[in-house]
């Protein structure tokens, strides 16, 4: 009997087993006592010993089938599924011998079930090569004990046939003494054996068929390979051979861990240093000088390639991502809530400001002093000039960004490998976050982890560019690889992004907050002015004084109400869907303060809004597996393009409607007010940290997240896994509020996406957390925000999902 599983330990679960044991042992015992002496005398003295041996074999197999571990897979550790919570799909496709097999995410065990593995609800664990749960032995039948179960069935069938036959012989020879004890007992025995022989024979025949076809009961019953090809079959004879002769796989759960301590202490070797060592510790158990010689030239080639590619990096500077990530990391570590002041020069931001404030309140941003300090450290040299110049600067800039924003981490030396190393402190931070709280930190950790991957230098492009090409060209096959290497597709997005993207914007804002941008189109205005100045109330912020009133921008409305692009249907992974959801919920508070804008302006602006999305629809399916970082980059590009158009529009509108419209004053001053307006102690605006709520919301605000069709026409990989099964019951309430098909989160937000009434609307989209656990407004319960260190959110976060079915 299995050790775990609540259902299998219930008293009622033992009834079939006990019945089976009683019937088997009882009947056979009576057969041996009452019938076998006559058989030994009349037929052959070898009959009873043979029957005894057969019965002994039946019992042995029965015991093994009952008590042997079926191949239970242990539950995955917390650190293993760090990136598999909200963003990854429910199914992962894998190719087995040319056949696509779906691996489903097991919410209880926290891993993608290997092929042929299934979760037993009675025993509550995943079993390798799961066949079925047999009530007669009260155990799962799986990889390790299927052989014993099958042999038990075979031997039991033979035994029952034997008992029935010999008993019948006895009765036929003792027809005159039918009512004698021996005869009566034999009659009872043969009736029992005859009665149970039929189902047992049927079951044996069924399993013989399964073995010959190479299927499990589970696969047969669910009809997995009915019409298609079974990739797991080896042919009839080989299947039988495998059944009988295969080695018994090990027990995973009950292993004695005899670990010898491995001391891992810095300083650590590096690949560049390795090659300089002549014939050192290179033996992988294979003493081969030729191998070593082969390694060094290839390694040298790789290194040179890396360096070559690094000098003219084709991608926008990744360091900003590091900066943002580190900001997020530090913020989360601190766990403070700061108000975000948003001195904006772009019309859309005023509407966002109260929302962003509230969101940042809900998040755990860096204390303003720290941010100010860190941002000041970067200096003006890393302003837009450095980024608009050669691409070589990002290397240094990122390094310095990491330096400044990670005061608690070790400063990195300026070297070609510094960029690589920066990812490690970040990843250590991600791990720190992980360990601080499992719940809810996954999304952030995913971003940080993947961004850690992304912050690996351009060298990563070498290895991943080929992958990316293949990934983008093929359909489902590489999706598994995508999940394995979530960082890879980032490069694609980055490559596609405009030259400066939003990264230099962050850098510039981080440095002094009021950078006069010579190239207005080169940054995302949404991020401008999003700050986390906690002690400065918005009204008193001197940086705002010089700015005109923040009217809601018709362009913002236009963004909100823009129809979803067909390219994005089916394109958005869950994280972006969540982004879009929260973005829908974000405007409501801002809408309250929105001043009326001439309707004509709005209409004209809406008309001028770009409706075309250039993203190819064929790529939509692939994006299901891309992390939110990639999508964010893509959205950034869209934003920038639209900003350009908006600027043209606004310029035109200004000409049309005159200079009185305040909103049109703002775009012309594409930068924040100069530094001298702000008092020396004030903090400059900080762009939303990458991965933070503001960031995600701002990217989603532009209406990319809207999807009219529930699921893409592509695979079910767009279904989300949702939270862990241990999440709070809020899931059920949210699932009731959210119409969802399977686990898709996007259709749930179709209807409420355009609501701008206020908090009440947001509750219909996002599950409202209980007030006692989460006092902040509901939209702060942004599920994909990584707030692992928030003390009160550890529980609520789990419950807050956008596609909240298990």
């Amino acid at each position, binding site marked *: 009997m299995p050790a775990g599983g609540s259902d299998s330990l219930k008293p009622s679960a033992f009834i079939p087993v006990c019945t089976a044991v009683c019937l088997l042992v009882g009947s056979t015992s009576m057969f041996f006592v009452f019938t076998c002496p006559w058989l030994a005398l009349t037929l052959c003295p070898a009959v009873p010993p043979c029957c005894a041996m057969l019965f*002994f*074999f039946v*019992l*042995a197999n029965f*015991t093994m089938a009952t008590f042997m571990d079926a191949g239970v897979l*242990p539950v*995955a550790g917390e*650190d*293993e599924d760090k990136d598999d919570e909200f963003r990854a799909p429910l199914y992962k496709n894998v190719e*087995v*011998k040319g056949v696509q097999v779906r691996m489903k995410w097991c919410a209880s065990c926290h*891993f993608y079930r*290997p*092929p042929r593995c299934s979760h037993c609800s009675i025993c509550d664990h995943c079993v*390798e090569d799961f066949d079925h749960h047999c009530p007669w032995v009260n155990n799962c039948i799986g990889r390790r004990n299927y*052989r*014993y179960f099958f042999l038990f069935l075979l031997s039991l069938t033979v035994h029952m046939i034997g008992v029935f036959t010999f008993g019948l012989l006895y009765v036929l020879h003792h027809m005159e003494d039918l009512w004698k004890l021996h005869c009566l007992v034999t009659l009872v025995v043969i009736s029992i054996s005859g009665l149970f022989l039929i189902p047992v024979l049927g079951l044996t025949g069924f399993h013989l068929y399964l073995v010959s076809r190479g299927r499990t009961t589970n696969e047969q019953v669910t009809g997995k390979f009915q019409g298609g090809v079974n*990739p797991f079959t080896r042919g009839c004879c080989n299947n039988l*051979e495998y059944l*009988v002769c*295969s*080695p*018994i*796989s*090990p027990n*995973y759960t009950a*292993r004695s861990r005899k670990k010898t301590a*491995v*001391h*891992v*202490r*810095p*300083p*650590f070797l*590096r*690949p560049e240093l*390795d090659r300089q060592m002549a014939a050192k*510790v*290179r033996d*992988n*158990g294979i003493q081969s000088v030729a191998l070593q010689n082969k390694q060094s030239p290839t*390694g040298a080639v790789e290194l040179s390639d890396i360096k070559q590619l690094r000098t003219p990096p084709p991608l926008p500077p990744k360091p900003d991502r590091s900066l943002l990530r580190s900001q997020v990391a530090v913020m989360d570590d601190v766990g403070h809530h700061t108000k975000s002041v948003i001195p904006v020069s772009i019309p859309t931001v005023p509407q966002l400001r109260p929302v962003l404030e509230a969101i940042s309140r809900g998040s755990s941003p860096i204390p303003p002093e720290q941010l100010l300090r860190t941002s000041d450290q970067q200096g003006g040299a890393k302003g837009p000039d450095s980024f608009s110049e050669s691409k070589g600067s990002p290397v240094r800039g990122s390094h310095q960004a990491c330096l400044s924003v990670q005061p608690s981490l*070790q*400063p990195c*030396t300026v070297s070609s*490998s510094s960029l*690589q*190393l920066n*990812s*490690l402190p970040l*990843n*250590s931070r991600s*791990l720190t976050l992980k360990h601080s709280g499992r719940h809810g930190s996954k999304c952030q950790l995913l971003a940080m*982890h993947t961004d*850690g991957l992304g912050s690996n230098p351009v060298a990563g492009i070498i*290895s991943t560019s080929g992958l990316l090409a293949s990934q983008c060209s093929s359909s489902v096959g590489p999706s*598994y690889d995508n999940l*394995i*290497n979530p960082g*890879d597709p980032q490069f694609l997005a980055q490559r596609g992004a405009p030259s400066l993207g939003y990264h230099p914007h962050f850098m510039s804002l981080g440095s002094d907050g009021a950078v006069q941008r010579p190239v207005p189109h080169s940054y995302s205005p949404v991020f401008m002015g999003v700050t986390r100045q906690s002690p400065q109330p918005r009204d008193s912020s001197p940086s705002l004084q010089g700015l005109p009133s923040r009217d809601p921008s018709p362009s913002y409305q236009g963004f909100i109400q823009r129809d979803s692009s067909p390219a994005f249907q089916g394109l958005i992974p869950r994280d972006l869907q969540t982004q879009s959801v929260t973005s829908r919920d974000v405007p409501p508070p801002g809408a309250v303060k929105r001043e009326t804008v001439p309707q004509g302006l709005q209409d004209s602006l809406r008309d001028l809004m770009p409706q075309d999305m250039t993203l190819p629809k064929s790529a939509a399916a692939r994006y299901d597996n891309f992390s939110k970082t990639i999508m964010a980059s893509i959205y950034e590009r869209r934003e920038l393009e639209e900003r350009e158009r908006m600027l043209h529009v606004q310029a035109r509108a200004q000409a049309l409607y005159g200079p009185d419209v305040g909103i049109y004053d703002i775009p012309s001053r594409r930068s924040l007010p100069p530094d001298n307006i702000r008092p020396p102690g004030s903090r400059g605006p900080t762009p939303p940290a990458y991965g933070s709520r503001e960031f995600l919301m701002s990217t989603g605000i532009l209406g990319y997240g809207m999807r009219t069709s529930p699921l893409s026409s592509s695979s079910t990989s767009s279904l989300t896994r949702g939270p862990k099964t241990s999440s709070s019951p809020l899931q059920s309430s949210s699932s009731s509020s959210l119409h969802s098909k399977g686990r898709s989160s996007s259709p749930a937000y179709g209807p409420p996406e355009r609501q701008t009434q206020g908090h009440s609307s947001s509750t219909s989209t996002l599950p409202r957390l209980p007030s006692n656990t989460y006092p902040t407004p509901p939209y702060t319960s942004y599920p994909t925000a990584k707030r692992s260190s928030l003390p009160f959110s550890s529980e609520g976060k789990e419950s807050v999902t956008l596609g909240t079915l298990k």
Partner: protein
Amino acid sequence: MRQQASIAAKVFIQRDYTNGTLCQFQTKFPSELETRMDKQQFEETVRTLNNLYAEAEKLGSQSFFEGCLACLTAYTVFLCMETHYEKVLKKIAKYIQEQNDKIYAPRGLLLTDPIERGLRVIEITIFEDRSFSR
């Protein structure tokens, strides 16, 4: 005694199911390890592990006789004797320990025996390189 380095990240090498449910791991070099070790070394390690697991799961005369003996003794032989698979698992554990000592630990990495994860992933722990960052 100097303090052990702290964990920076973990990389998980997933199973390779292209040949069915045989225990094989992907030899693809993860990007997180690019700065830490050679691709060749890593691939060599994973390939050796794959070969060892293939040897463990091989359908041969040894496994057949083992099964017969088990049947004849009503499986009581499992109480005293180790199965073929278990023997190879010990070999694998020894190999991983050796790899850790010689190659991975000096580079701030640590291989975890996949048997502890149910033969689903090879977990590679990346340790924070404080000395380098100084």
